[in-house]
């Protein structure tokens, strides 16, 4: 079906001179160097894969991607956004991984009347009263994956959990989300500096607190450090470790090694989800890039599909904000994760799954779905969003 629509789009494009003269410009601001680059590269590669599969066009409009490396620094992300909007005239900005960067670029993006389609960062600050007509999130609200894990830990009957997260907006959202659905006792709640390398001190405190379960949110390199050190300290066998998918995602599993084997984590997506779109995506990603996609890659891919559907529905008038906003809200695309729609605050309503780290037939560490935790789950902030 997609091929037919691509061909159709190409045909429409051929007869429509205005569309050919006006390419759709996407600003891809993401983390491509330094620690955390694995996440940004996956989002970019996922986005690019969708664009390639659509013949270099989104919504039948020739699409040009302007790429910028934010180096995980808010000031650089803002500079990039400013330059892409003023000089390159991008219509849409996407790609940002980190919530503190997303919050930093919002004023620039809104002033430029440009849409920010987040393929990852979903801070609570943009979900509630501060929700914004120019902001869409195609991944999740930050709390969601943690809420799902809170539910799982609650269901298993744990009653003395130890919680850890980095000290930045998404870290605080994570523990808030976990505690929304986990109502048992808390043995300790620790925030560590963003980018911390060594967790030996925290692990010693953790052991002394003698919890019955540990929940951590450590994305990217922090997750590698933490999980390796957790196992080396002999804790993995003693106290079960839980976390959102970010600490056990495909981008870090190879580096963590067997220390991650068997750990439970929660996500809105998994490489083994059996939707036809997902099967096609995972296969194409592996063929193109030679690795199993992470959930970040799936989100980048979905961001491109969302833009594709919205621009297609808007037709020639895709640069009219009001029209594009209306067609974005429809979310009329086949997400690789299955059912997907937008809430009133432009955040997703979707299913969440419990996954387990396993070895696949080739001996590669990956995730497998254990069960569904939430059915069509929204976020806790949408009610306070007053967006018309």
């Amino acid at each position, binding site marked *: 079906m997609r091929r037919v629509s691509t061909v159709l789009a190409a045909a429409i494009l051929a007869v429509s001179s205005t569309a050919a003269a006006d390419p759709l410009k996407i600003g891809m601001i993401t983390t491509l160097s*330094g*620690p955390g680059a694995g996440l940004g590269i996956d989002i970019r590669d996922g986005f690019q894969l969708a664009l390639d599969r659509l013949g270099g066009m989104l919504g039948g409009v020739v699409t040009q991607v302007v790429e910028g490396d934010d180096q995980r620094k808010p000031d650089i992300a803002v500079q990039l956004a400013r330059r892409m909007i003023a000089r390159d005239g991008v219509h849409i900005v996407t790609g940002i991984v980190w919530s503190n960067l997303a919050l930093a670029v919002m004023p620039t993006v809104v002033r430029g009347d440009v849409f920010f389609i987040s393929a990852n960062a979903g801070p609570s600050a943009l979900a509630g009263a501060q929700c914004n007509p120019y902001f869409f999130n195609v991944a999740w609200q930050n709390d969601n994956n943690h809420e799902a894990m809170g539910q799982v830990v609650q269901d298993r009957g744990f009653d003395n959990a130890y919680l850890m997260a980095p000290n930045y907006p998404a870290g605080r959202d994570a523990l808030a989300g976990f505690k929304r659905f986990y109502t048992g006792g808390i043995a300790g709640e620790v925030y560590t500096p963003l980018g911390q390398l060594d967790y030996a*001190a925290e692990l010693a405190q953790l052991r002394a607190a003698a919890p019955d379960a540990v929940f951590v949110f450590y994305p990217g390199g922090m997750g590698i450090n933490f999980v390796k*050190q957790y196992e080396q300290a002999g804790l993995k066998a003693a106290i079960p470790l839980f976390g959102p998918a970010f600490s056990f995602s495909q981008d870090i599993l*190879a580096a963590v090694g067997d220390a991650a084997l068997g750990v439970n984590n929660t996500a809105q997506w998994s490489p083994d989800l059996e939707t036809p779109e997902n099967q096609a995506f995972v296969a194409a990603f592996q063929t193109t890039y030679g690795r199993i996609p992470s959930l970040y890659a799936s989100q980048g891919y979905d961001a491109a599909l969302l833009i594709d559907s919205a621009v297609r529905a808007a037709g020639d008038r895709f640069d009219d904000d009001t029209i594009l906003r209306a067609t974005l809200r429809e979310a009329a695309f086949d997400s690789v994760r299955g059912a997907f729609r937008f809430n009133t605050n432009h955040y997703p309503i979707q299913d969440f799954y419990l996954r387990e780290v396993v070895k696949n037939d080739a001996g590669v560490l990956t995730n497998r779905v254990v069960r569904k935790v939430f059915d069509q789950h929204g976020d806790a902030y949408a009610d306070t969003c007053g967006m018309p």
Partner: protein
Amino acid sequence: MAIDPSLAIEQTLNGLQLGVMLFLIAAGLTLVFGIMDLINLAHGSFYMFGAYLTATFVGMFDHFGLAVLGAVACAAALGIAIELVAMRTLYQRDHLDQVLATFGLTLLANEAVKMTWGPVPIFLNPPAALDQTVTVFGIAYPAFRLAIIAVGLAVGLFLWWLIRQTRLGMLIRAGATNRTMVLALGVDIRRIFTTVFAIGAALAALAGAMAGPILAVQVGMGEEILILAFVVVVIGGIGSVRGALVGALLVGLVDTLGRILLPSALAALFDPATAAGTAGALASMSIYMLMAVVLALRPQGLFPTSR
């Protein structure tokens, strides 16, 4: 909150281990900085190469010790090459040029690693014999972290011997104190510089090799730790290896204990969420506050080399 003695011992060990790790990096940095008057931002790249090469060699030799030796030797060779090609032209330039040039080298190194090993972090585990906990002072402690402390102290001893007991060390000390005079005495300072740079690169690679099994082996891992290493160098006194050791241990202990003590201290004042957040923010500042205090009292660092 009363602190349990065995926990206090464990946290002190953690602080020591972090300090020793920082010393391994800072020792090379301070030698190069102090003796050659060269600010080398690419020092972190040798650290990264050390970790990546060790991971690769472990795959080839299946022996951790051999892999570390191989990585250290490769880094030293690379250090010699870079000194001959690039660094030589920088000694006469001012510090800003050096920062720009070595920062450029860092970018080059990161891209090279990304092209060779890919953007995704790679795997490096401790050797099987050390991948367990051992009981010291009645607490279970990861054996590999003890090995890091041992390696760091051995390197400290080696550097002490090298600098205090050998002719090369004498020249290094003389060069750090008064370079012009050493030149005037007819010593080939260029060869000393090449040697010192290679030693620095080898030490950084050793640090990377020892850090790899407990930290993420990823592109840009060197920049994260380089800032801490510079703090150590400044606290210890530029050019002083003894200062680097004391500074590193101080930074390791202050950082570790700050992360532990601040939350419990603040918990008495605020509600748990605020206390945890504030303590996290303060703990990440603690070593910079230490640096500020040291600089206020001793602007040349703890062990200044006279020049």
